[in-house]
């Protein structure tokens, strides 16, 4: 029984919802499914023909040390960036919600690194590492500082973590500021009256109140770090000697430098599974917390 109202509803869906649905299907769902198909083929990206190879790409991916190395590197980079950026962002968030003159101006200024795109940012830092820091090192006669971090395989990763955290912490700061702002002032006041010192107020009153902000920021940082691409490309381009090639850049290079599209897509599917797993964990943790409260 399709009443006039029922018909009107479908007309509305067709006119208003389906255009967006169509765009989403053709740019996300269909390409994604097609991507899974590509991961079962061998294709060089140029020829019009390809051959089905079944699970060979996955087999190759999991048996290549380069893939595991890059995954491990991404893991190390993620741990470093997540910890550093969140600690700094927490301090910034606390500082910029305290009784500070001109705190809005400070927030605006500190967020600026996020306005500049990853490519430009990477190049600016590249010159700072190659010419700025080395100059200071030479002048002060500090041996390790007088050569560029970016040309040293053991230190290039540190540079990458520092630059990423520098940018990401400014982003997370905004979320922490919102979190701290929502902590009721009476609660902090009551704790102070009861004789709690600044540290205890922070640890026992403020921190529990911003738990949801912490969850958001942690997962945001994890997902972002796992998918890092532009800064990786422009700051180190995976070098020196592949020591900083993270998984997203590796997928890109496998496809567009080595022209192994099937293999690259198989790696992309693995990355997707990892990120999907992290997101499910996030949903789980967020929901669990909501039930508790």
């Amino acid at each position, binding site marked *: 029984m399709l009443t006039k109202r029922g018909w009107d509803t479908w007309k509305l869906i067709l006119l*208003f919802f389906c255009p967006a649905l169509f765009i989403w299907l053709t740019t*996300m769902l*269909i*390409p994604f499914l097609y991507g899974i198909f590509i991961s079962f083929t061998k294709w060089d990206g140029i020829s019009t023909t390809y051959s089905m190879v079944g699970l060979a790409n996955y087999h190759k991916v999991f048996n290549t040390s380069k893939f595991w190395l890059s995954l491990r590197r991404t893991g190390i980079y993620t741990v470093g960036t997540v910890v550093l950026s969140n600690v700094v962002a927490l301090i910034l968030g606390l500082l910029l919600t305290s009784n500070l003159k001109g705190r809005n101006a400070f927030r605006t200024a500190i*967020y600026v690194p996020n306005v500049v*795109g990853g*490519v430009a940012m990477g190049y600016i830092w590249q010159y700072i590492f190659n010419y700025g820091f080395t100059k200071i090192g030479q002048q002060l006669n500090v041996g390790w500082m007088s050569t560029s971090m970016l040309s040293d395989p053991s230190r290039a990763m540190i540079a990458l973590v520092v630059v990423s955290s520098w940018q990401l912490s400014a982003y997370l700061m905004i979320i922490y500021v919102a979190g701290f702002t929502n902590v009721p002032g009476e609660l902090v006041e009551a704790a102070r009256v009861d004789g709690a010192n600044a540290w205890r107020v922070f640890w026992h009153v403020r921190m529990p109140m911003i738990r949801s902000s912490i969850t958001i920021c942690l997962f945001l940082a994890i997902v972002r770090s796992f998918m890092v691409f532009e800064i990786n490309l422009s700051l180190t381009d995976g070098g020196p000697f592949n020591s900083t090639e993270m998984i997203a850049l590796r*997928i890109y290079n496998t496809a567009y430098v080595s022209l192994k599209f099937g293999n690259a897509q198989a790696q992309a599917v693995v990355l997707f599974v990892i990120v999907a797993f992290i997101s499910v964990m996030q949903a789980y943790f967020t929901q669990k917390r909501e039930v508790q409260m």
Partner: protein
Amino acid sequence: MVEKRSTKVLLLVLAIVLTMFYLFPLVLMALNSLKTTGQFTMNPFSLPTRLVAENYPQAFTQMHFLTSLGNTFVLTVSVCLLVAVFGSMAAYVVSRVKNKFVSFFYYFMIASMCAPFQAFMIPLVKLYAARLGFNNSLLPVIYIGTGLNLAFATFLVRGFLNAIPMEIDQAAMIDGCGSIRLFFHIILPMLTPIMVTLLVFVAMGVWNDYLLSSLFLQTQDKRTLPMMIRVFCAQYSNDYAPMMAGLVMSIAPMLIFYLICQKQILAGVVQGSVKG
């Protein structure tokens, strides 16, 4: 009282030092764009002894600045328009209509927001460039850029729409207003605040995007600003001063935009973070 004053000063000093840490790369870039390359390599931290303005015109022509600025502008405005129209229309349906088909795909779209772009990269190029023949054209970049932002737009606007009472819709319906007119004449104007937040956020992402554009655009006349930065920095990797000038010019438009819309941008960061 004295102690309180000193902590206040201490906090202020700490804030200034931290802010300097976040801004010094940009300051350094601006400073060095006014020096010669010789001065730059001698001491990147010194103030320019005399202002060298030549770097700017040199970078301006070598970067084909106006062309790439124009391309980036067309791309960003197109994506914003499409996302605004289709995203808000879809959000309206999701918010107002109880329907299994709609809610199924809505949650599917929301779930897709967290997927890494690398999972779509190769199939997108194969579908749009190889199969449909959109080579070296802004069109697929605009279309795909829209698709990648639609789920977020629908999600964000839906949250805002849910807070607008249904009675407004019903009153208009009783007055004989059809759903299309209702949406465009009554609902859409009420969405202005969330639309500004959404579009400012989307615009920043699209403006700075490198990867998607680089997959579809090859020739110099089609390049966007982030692509141009990469090509320019690779080509003139020994001539730092003009490169710094090029970087300053490519960053400036977004920086100005940010200073104008900072309130919306920072609001977008908070609202965007609670997705999922």
